[in-house]
């Protein structure tokens, strides 16, 4: 906290406040052009940069000691694996432009090693999937790999328009993915496999079918060369760091915001230290579980929504592998499992003979893991790993455990919509309340993920500029 600056600003703020109070009216806050942005993820940084470009005074306040939020490169580990956002889609115009302008080099990700299957306790080589006895799918479905089953949804995808995924008319027919997939004729075995590693829901019962259509529709449109995804060569966190470096005013790091209050003419942000910062508008580009922790006196309808929107659960165990021990047994190196391990993504560390191996567990399976202490959790996952690959015990070392749901400044990976929920929740959660504006991945319209975060920052900057121009 730069306390001299803060104090000087406070003094200035107090005099202006008194002037406004004494004049007895709703006189506009004097400079009228200061915005606070709470959180230095992609959405907040993008909003802050746009506002600064147009001459507004912007102060970004970040809870953590690093910027980037849900983009988090694990720089201490060999290969700098990503603990958060991984790939930049080929159509991520804003992300790619920011990387280009700020000279953050990008590359095509090193290829993830081929994945074999571990289903019903049986190891199945990827080439044997269709004929394997342990493949539980009926004849017409047997040749579809588990990771592609959800793609079958595109045969009936009703979402023809970018914003249709929260269209109230379409939402009227939204159901849970569980009953929806069944009604569409997906065999039970396919539904079970889809549920085993579903990145877009914690369980199929509480997942909106329409939200799955949304994701599958996006993948469907991105066919062919458009699938050429990118990552930042030196870690995705270099992008938010470069964006932060462009700001005229340094970010207040390590300063969790605890409260945001407003009058008709000003806002006041309170930090955990007790210090306050006054501004003409505040942008809250935070994931909902983090937003819930901030005292904001929101309208009751919004508060209820904050409580009910679910967040995707992910636990990752990042391991370092010294040698490709799987080759001897003829396995590919990555795995798709229907047990605790979820998916295992292994990829070479460029320029070395080592590999990053990430165990990626998602959904409700994370609950038990999130409740354990760190050592117990690592032990639990490691043992499952050694059961699957006994050779891993010698050749693999644990780098880092990442549990997104336990992180108070994230609370999960991304917003999940319950059946029918997006019809009203999406609009309500991004609606400004007086001088307080909302952004972040969950408020985006056209994109999800990193590009959605950038898109939402643009919209919030526009709203603030309308108010303060």
């Amino acid at each position, binding site marked *: 906290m730069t306390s001299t600056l803060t104090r000087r600003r406070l003094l200035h703020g*107090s005099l202006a406040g008194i002037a406004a*109070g004494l004049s007895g009216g*709703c006189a506009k806050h004097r400079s009228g052009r200061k915005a606070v942005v709470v959180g230095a993820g992609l959405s907040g940084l993008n909003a802050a940069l*746009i506002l600064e470009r*147009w001459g507004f005074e912007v102060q970004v306040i970040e809870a953590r000691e690093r910027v980037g939020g849900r983009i988090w490169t694990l720089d201490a580990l060999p290969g700098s694996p990503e603990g958060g956002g991984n790939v930049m889609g080929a159509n991520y115009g804003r992300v790619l432009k920011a990387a280009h302008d700020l000279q953050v080099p990008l590359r095509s990700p090193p290829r993830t090693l081929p994945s074999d299957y571990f289903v019903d306790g049986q190891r199945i080589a990827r080439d044997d999937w269709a004929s394997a006895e342990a493949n539980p799918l009926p004849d017409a479905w047997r040749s579809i790999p588990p990771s592609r089953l959800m793609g079958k949804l595109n045969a009936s995808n009703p979402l023809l328009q970018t914003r249709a995924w929260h269209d109230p008319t379409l939402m009227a027919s939204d159901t849970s993915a569980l009953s929806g997939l069944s009604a569409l004729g997906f065999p039970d075995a396919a539904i079970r496999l889809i549920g085993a590693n579903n990145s877009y829901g914690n369980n199929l019962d509480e997942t909106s079918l329409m939200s799955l259509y949304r994701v599958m529709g996006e993948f469907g449109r991105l066919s062919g060369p458009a699938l050429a995804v990118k990552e930042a060569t030196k870690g995705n966190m270099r992008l938010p760091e470069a964006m932060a470096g462009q700001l005229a005013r340094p970010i207040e790091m390590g300063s969790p915001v605890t409260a945001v209050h407003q009058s008709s003419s000003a806002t006041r942000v309170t930090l955990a230290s007790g210090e306050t910062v006054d501004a003409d508008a505040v942008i809250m580009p935070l994931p909902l579980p983090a937003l819930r922790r901030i005292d904001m006196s929101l309208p009751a309808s919004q508060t209820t929504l904050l409580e009910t929107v679910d967040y995707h659960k992910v636990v990752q165990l990042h391991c370092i592998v010294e040698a490709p021990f799987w080759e001897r047994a003829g396995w590919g190196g990555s795995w798709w499992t229907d047990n605790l391990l979820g998916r295992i993504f292994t990829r070479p560390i460029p320029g070395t003979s080592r590999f990053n191996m990430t165990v990626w567990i998602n959904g409700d399976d994370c609950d038990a893991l999130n409740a354990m202490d760190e050592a117990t959790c690592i032990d639990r996952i490691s043992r499952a790993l050694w059961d699957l690959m006994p050779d891993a015990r010698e050749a693999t070392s644990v780098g880092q455990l990442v549990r997104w749901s336990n992180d108070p400044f994230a609370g999960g990976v991304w917003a999940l919509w319950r059946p029918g929920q997006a019809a009203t929740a999406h609009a309500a959660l991004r609606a400004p309340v007086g001088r307080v504006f909302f952004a972040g991945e969950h408020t985006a319209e056209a*994109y999800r993920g990193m590009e959605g975060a950038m898109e939402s920052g643009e*919209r919030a900057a526009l709203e603030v500029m*309308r108010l303060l121009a």
Partner: protein
Amino acid sequence: MNQCWRDLAISFALICSTNAVAQADSLTGEQLYDIACSACHSLAHTPDHHIGPPLGGLLDRPAGAVEGYRYSEALRNSSWRWSLPTLVAWLADPDTAIPNNAMNYVNPMTAEETQRLGEWLLGES
């Protein structure tokens, strides 16, 4: 310092509060373009492709015509030509205007802002 904090608290209590905050709505076409379009487009008259095609020289240009840009089939075959009315219709709802286009864009601007942006963009080009 203590006095300062107390004054601040008092002054805050004095500020009258209403829920409605006046909307200035006076952003210029240039500002709107910068916020809402510039991340995906350039204003070049040459094939300077970002994720979208360049928008320089847009007035009277047939849709989908800039050399070397990989347009969607929908836009290329649309037989649209860019003018203020077509541009405003496109931006208001790209999916309805030209179904299956690849812009993937939901317009955050008001109708007046879209109009102002369109006038500026076509005048600029």
